[in-house]
């Protein structure tokens, strides 16, 4: 009996003295913290879904109102943007005299684009081409494809060169050939040398004759 009691008490004491693992509290709190963060991320969706399920009509009306406001904001912005432009056009066109040749249909056509610009359903700026002719022209110029620039006019020297090439004779044109110029220079140099060589020879002959005459006159 004593052994059985001891064994039973030993088991119960082992269960009583069980120690929690080290860091169990930290691990539990970390797990709870991660669950809390995940719950915050998913919580608002669940709450919204539950509230919508409770009052679906009210939330549908709220959603429709929100959509209407969102659609009305761009129209209001466009109206605010075009209102001063329209008044400026009116003041500028007011002092001009009416064109007598313009028919009623043309005048209606001319005024129609102004009405179009007031429409809030045309937010694209390309639609403004028909509204303002000046602006349409500017838009066409801006959108036109690029072309290469025209050639610059010739300078005076270039014009003279062109004239020279087209009017002179072949002999004159050949004068600008460097080989011809070199041959001509060589010829002139040869004539120069020949002239001065002959001149020096004549001078030497004269000097020699004068020396001989002086020698004869002396006893």
């Amino acid at each position, binding site marked *: *009996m004593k*052994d*059985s*009691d001891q*064994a*039973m008490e*030993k*088991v*119960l*004491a*082992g*269960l*009583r003295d*069980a120690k*929690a*693992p080290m860091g*169990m*509290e*930290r*691990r*539990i*709190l*970390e*797990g*709870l*913290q991660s*669950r*809390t963060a995940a*719950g*915050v991320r998913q*919580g608002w969706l669940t709450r919204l879904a539950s509230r919508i399920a409770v009052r679906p009509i009210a939330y549908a009306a709220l959603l429709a109102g929100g959509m209407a406001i969102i659609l009305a904001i761009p129209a209001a912005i466009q109206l605010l943007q075009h209102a001063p432009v329209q008044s400026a056009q009116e003041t500028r066109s007011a002092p001009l005299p009416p064109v007598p040749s313009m028919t009623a249909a043309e005048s209606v056509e001319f005024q129609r684009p102004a009405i179009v610009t007031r429409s809030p359903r045309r937010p694209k700026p390309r639609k403004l081409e028909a509204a303002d002719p000046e602006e349409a022209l500017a838009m066409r110029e801006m959108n036109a494809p690029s072309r290469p620039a025209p050639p610059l006019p010739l300078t005076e020297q270039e014009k003279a060169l062109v004239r020279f090439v087209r009017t002179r004779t072949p002999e004159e044109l050949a004068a600008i050939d460097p080989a011809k110029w070199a041959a001509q220079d060589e010829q002139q140099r040869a004539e120069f040398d020949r002239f001065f060589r002959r001149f020096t020879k004549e001078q030497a002959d004269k000097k020699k004759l004068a020396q001989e005459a002086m020698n004869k006159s002396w006893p």
Partner: protein
Amino acid sequence: MASVGGYSLALASMESARSEVDLAALVETYSSLLFRVAHSVLRSRTEAEDVVQDAFVRVLEHRRSLSEVRDMRVWLVRIAWNLALDRRRRIRPEQLDEVFAETLAANTVPADKALDEAQHIGHVLREMERLPKGERYVLLLSAIEELETVEMAAVLGRSESAVRALLFRARTRLRERLEKGEIRR
């Protein structure tokens, strides 16, 4: 607001101030008790820790109704107790009991007698599991010693006198069975 190891969780940060509960303080106060409650059923430290974790997750899930809880200690012990019982049905407790018996024998007797002691402790654990459910539950909860009879009665949903009677019968029955086993050996 108290904090444990730098972690401080306030449930009221998400909900109304009425349901404000300092979860870190709850973990600090009751985690050891809940661990022993779960360990008495499972006889495994890792499984018991998982049960404690699950118990506090339940607290987190029921944070809105925490103000209605009259006795937080009993409520937490009941959660851990039920979670441990549920977990024991899904695992193989025989292996856990063998490991627990070997560990307990190694801590109490010399190494040359540890094998016999482990077998003896294993036999006691098996006889405990063979006890009727009510008696076994009362015996396991009484092993914790931190729980009074009133608290055990609240956890098990019985009266105090019933708990006392169950505890007496459990001890008596277990002693008789152990003695019969010793005689057979």
